[in-house]
C-alpha cells in the first residue's frame, strides 16, 4: 500500500505544480520534481505555453516571426522557421524567450543559442533577434540579443 501512496503523492505533486491548485504543495515539490527529471513548468510545445495562449496580447502562433542573425564578418542572415531544427534551435529559442518573458535573463542561454545558430551560417554569430510582426509587451522580441565575445 505504501507504493500506492507514493504514486498518488507523486501525481498530486505533478498536478499541483502544473495546474496550481495547492500552492504550498507545489512550492514544496517543485525543485525535487525537477531533480527527478519532471520539469512540470518546462516549456512544452503545446498550447499550454503562456507564449502560445497569452490572452493579454496575442498568442504567438497568430503572428509571423523570423530570425535575423548578424555574423562576425558583417553579413546578415534571415532564417526561416522551417530551416530550424527542433532540438538544435527551436527548443533553445523557445526556452530562452520564455525565461526572458518571466523577467529573467540567461546570458548562458544566449551563448548557447549563438553557438547553435552557427550551424546555420558560415561564420560565428555576433548577435541575433527574433522578430515578430506585432510587438509583444512581455517577451523581448525585436530586440537584439548580443552574443558573448
Amino acid at each position, binding site marked *: 500500500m505504501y507504493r500506492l501512496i507514493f504514486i498518488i503523492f507523486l501525481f498530486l505533486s505533478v498536478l499541483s505544480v502544473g495546474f496550481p491548485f495547492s500552492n504550498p504543495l507545489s512550492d514544496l515539490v517543485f525543485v525535487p520534481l525537477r*531533480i527527478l527529471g519532471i520539469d512540470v513548468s518546462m516549456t512544452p510545445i503545446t498550447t499550454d505555453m503562456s507564449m502560445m495562449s497569452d490572452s493579454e496580447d496575442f498568442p504567438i502562433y497568430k503572428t509571423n516571426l523570423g530570425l535575423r542573425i548578424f555574423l562576425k564578418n558583417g553579413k546578415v542572415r534571415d532564417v526561416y522557421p522551417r530551416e530550424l531544427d527542433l532540438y538544435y534551435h527551436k527548443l533553445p529559442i523557445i526556452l530562452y524567450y520564455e525565461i526572458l518573458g518571466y523577467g529573467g535573463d540567461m546570458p548562458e542561454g544566449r551563448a548557447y543559442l549563438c553557438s547553435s545558430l552557427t550551424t546555420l551560417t558560415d561564420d560565428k554569430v555576433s548577435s541575433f533577434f527574433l522578430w515578430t510582426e506585432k510587438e509583444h509587451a512581455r517577451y523581448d522580441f525585436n530586440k537584439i540579443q548580443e552574443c558573448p565575445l
Partner: protein
Amino acid sequence: MLDTTLIKFRNVLYRDFSDNEIFDLTRILNGLGILIYYITVIIPNFGKFFLSDGFVSPEAFTFYPKSWLFYFHDSQMILVLLFAVSFLMLMAYTLGFYAKWALIILLPIHLGFHAANPFILHEPQQLSNLLLILTLFLPIENHWALKKRRDMFPELKIRESRLILQSLLVYLSLYYFFAGIKKIPDPFWIKGSAVSDILNWPYLGRDNFLVNIIKNPAISKVLTYMTLVFEMSFVFIAFTRFRRGLLFLGFFFHLFIALTMDVGLFFWAMMSWYPVLLIKPRR
C-alpha cells in the same frame, strides 16, 4: 483467410491482460520511446549537447538544478562512458534483462544527462521520466522479459496492483482533461480555427500534403472540435467498458499530431502510458 485473421486480431485485442502484463508493456513502450530518443536525437548530437560548447556551465542554472555530471565536465571520456552505460542499461530495461537492476543504474545517469542541458527539453522527456520513476516500484519483469524475475519488492496483492493501475489511468485522464479545458478560454479553439492556426505557424507545423489538407477551414474546424471533445471526454470514457476504444482514438490522435507538427517524441511518450487502458474490465 481474412476472416480468420480478423478474428485472431479481435481475440488478441479483446483478451484480458493481467496487471503484470500491463506493467511489462508499459516498461517496454517507455524504454522503446527513450531508446528512439537516444538513437535519433542524443547520439548523433552528443558532442553538441553535452561536450564543449553544449555543456552549459553551472552559472546558467539559476532556473534549473545543476546536474551531478558537472563534476565530470572536464573529462569528456567519462561523460561518453557514462552515456554508454546509460544506453546499455536502457536496452536491458527495455528488453527485460534484469530490468529492475538496469533501471536502478540507469536512473541517476539518465537524469544526470537530462539536467545537463535544459535547452533540449520539452514535454515528452517529463512524461517518460515520470514513468521511469514509477516503474522502479512496480513489478516490470514478470511476464514479457528476457529474464523473468520476481520483483525485489514484496509482491503486490491483486487489489493493490489494480489500484495502482487505476491511479495511472486517473493521472492520464486528468492530463488530457486539463489539456482540453485549458484551451477553452482561447477564442481560436472556440471558433474552430486553432488547428489550422497552429499548423500555419512554421515553428510547429510541418510542410507536407497532410498539413495542406488540414488547413482547409472546414476540415480544421472539425479537427479542432474533435480535439477538444477527445481530450475532455477521455476521463469519462476511461472508466467505462469502452475504454479500449480510446486506444485507437488516442493512437491515431497522436500519430496525426506527429505527422503534422514538429513535436519531437511526444507520440512515443504518450503511447508508453496507453497500456493502462488495457486494465481488465469489471465483470
